[in-house]
C-alpha cells in the first residue's frame, strides 16, 4: 500500500547548515503542500534565535513563497481553520505564535508538523 503520510522520510537536500545562534528546524508538510513547494520529505529551515511558530513559518514562507496564504492568512498571519500544528505529540495549534517551540524541535530532534485537519472531502 502506498500512502502519502505527512511524516515524509528523507529531507530536503537544499536545506541550509546551521550557523552560530541559529536553530535548524525540521518541518514536515502535508502532501498537498509538499507537491506545491516541490519538496520531498522534510524541510530543514535555519531560524535565528530560539524558534517560535511564527519564526519557523516566516522562514518557511521565505524559502517557499508559493506557500504564502496556504497555512496562514496573508494579512493577519492567523492559522487557516483546517490547518493544525503538532510537535512532540502535542497540539500547538492554539499556542501563541511567539511562544518558544519545545526544545526537541529547536535542537532538531523532533520535527514541527504542519497538518491538514482530519476531515472528509
Amino acid at each position, binding site marked *: 500500500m502506498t500512502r502519502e503520510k505527512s511524516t515524509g522520510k528523507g529531507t530536503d537536500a537544499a536545506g541550509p547548515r546551521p550557523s552560530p545562534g541559529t536553530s535548524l528546524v525540521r518541518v514536515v508538510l502535508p502532501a*498537498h503542500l509538499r507537491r506545491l513547494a516541490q519538496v520531498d520529505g522534510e524541510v530543514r529551515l535555519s531560524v535565528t534565535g530560539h524558534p517560535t511558530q511564527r519564526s519557523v513559518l516566516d522562514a518557511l514562507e521565505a524559502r517557499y513563497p*508559493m506557500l504564502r*496564504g*496556504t497555512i496562514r492568512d*496573508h494579512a493577519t498571519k492567523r492559522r487557516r481553520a483546517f490547518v493544525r500544528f503538532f510537535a512532540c505529540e502535542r497540539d500547538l495549534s492554539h499556542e501563541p505564535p511567539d511562544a518558544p517551540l519545545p526544545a526537541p524541535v529547536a535542537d532538531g530532534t523532533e520535527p514541527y508538523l504542519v497538518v491538514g*485537519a482530519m*476531515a472528509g*472531502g
Partner: protein
Amino acid sequence: MSRVRVLVGTRKGAFILTSDGTREQWEVSGPHFAGWEVYHLKGSPVDPDRIYASQSTAWFGQLIQRSDDGGRTWRPVGNEFAYAGEAGTHQFYDGTPQPWKFNRVWHLEPSLTDPDIVYAGVEDAALFRSDDGGRSWHELPGLRGHGSGSQWQPGAGGLCLHTIILDPRQSGRITVAISAAGTFRSDDSGKTWQAINRGLRSEGIPDEDAEVGHCVHHIAMHPSRPETLFMQKHWDVMRSDDGGDSWREISGDLPSDFGFVIDVHAHEPETVYVVPIKSDSEHFPPDGRLRVYRSRTGGGEWEPLTDGLPQRDCYVNVLRDAMAVDTLEDCGVYFGTTGGQVYVSADSGDTWAPIVRDLPPVLSVEVQTLP
C-alpha cells in the same frame, strides 16, 4: 487541421481533453492539481497557451496557477486577494450583516487583448484584476461600493461573482453576475457600476422586481452581438437586447426554466442552449432524462436534444460554468456534469457523445479552438 482543447475543472483537480477537428478521438491529461477543487480554467484569447486556473481547498485556501505552454506545465502565481479599503458587510442568509470575507475564485476571465491582464470573480462577491499575468491582484472596488453592496445576500453556493463578460466592441464595458445579487455593468473599465436587473422577477425575494437580489446563474453573449445577452436565472431564462438595460423572459416551452448553464452557438447568434433542471430543490434533469434544449429563434421556442444523452435514470446536474462552444465550422458544444461526464456534440447539438465518463464532479468547462 484545427484542434480543440477542453479545459475541465472538477472537485478533485483539472483535466485537459484534446482532439483534432473531428472531435472523435480524445487524449486526456490530468489530474492537474490532484485533490484540489478547480473551479475554473480559461485561456487567453490572444495567447491560447497562456492558461489561468483557480485552485482551492478549504484546508489550504486559494492558489492561482498559470501555464504558458498550453497546460503542460504550471506554476503558482499570486494568491493574495485583499479587498480594497474597509471591507464592510453584506447580508447573511438570515439578513444580518456579515463582514466581507474572501473564500475562493469562481471565475477567471483573461483580457481580450493582453495576455497579462486577467479578471477574477470571487466569493464573497467582488471583482479583482491582475495586470501582471496573475502575480498580483487588486480589487475594482467600485462594484461593491456602488451602493447596493451592503444589501447583497449569498445564494446557496455562497455570495459569488461567477460571470464576467468583456465586450469586444466597447473596451471599457464589463458585465458581471453575482448570486444572489444580480447583474451589474461598468462602461469605464470597472471604475463605476450600475445594477442592470430591470425586467427580472424573482419570487424568493420580498420585492419581486427589486433593483438587486436576483439569483442570476449565468449569462452568455455572442461576440458579434454584444448588446444581446442571454441569462439563465435561478428560475427563468431571460434575454436582453440593450446590453442588460432591460430583460424579457424567453423560457417559452421549456420543461423547466430552472437551470444553471446557458450558451450561444459560435456562428448563429440566435441559437441558444440550456440544460433544464427540475427545480431548486431537485438539482437533476426532469424525468431523469438528460436533455440539452436548443432554441434557434433566440428563445421562446425550444427543442430537446437527446441523441447520445442518457434518457433514463439520470440524476446529474450541470453547473453554471460547465458549458462551452468551440468555433470550428461545425460548431462544437460541450458540457460537464456532476456525475463526471463531459459530453461533446460536433454538430451543433444534434448528436452527443461522452469524451470522458468518470471524472470527479465537473465544475467548469471551457474550450479553446486552436490552429
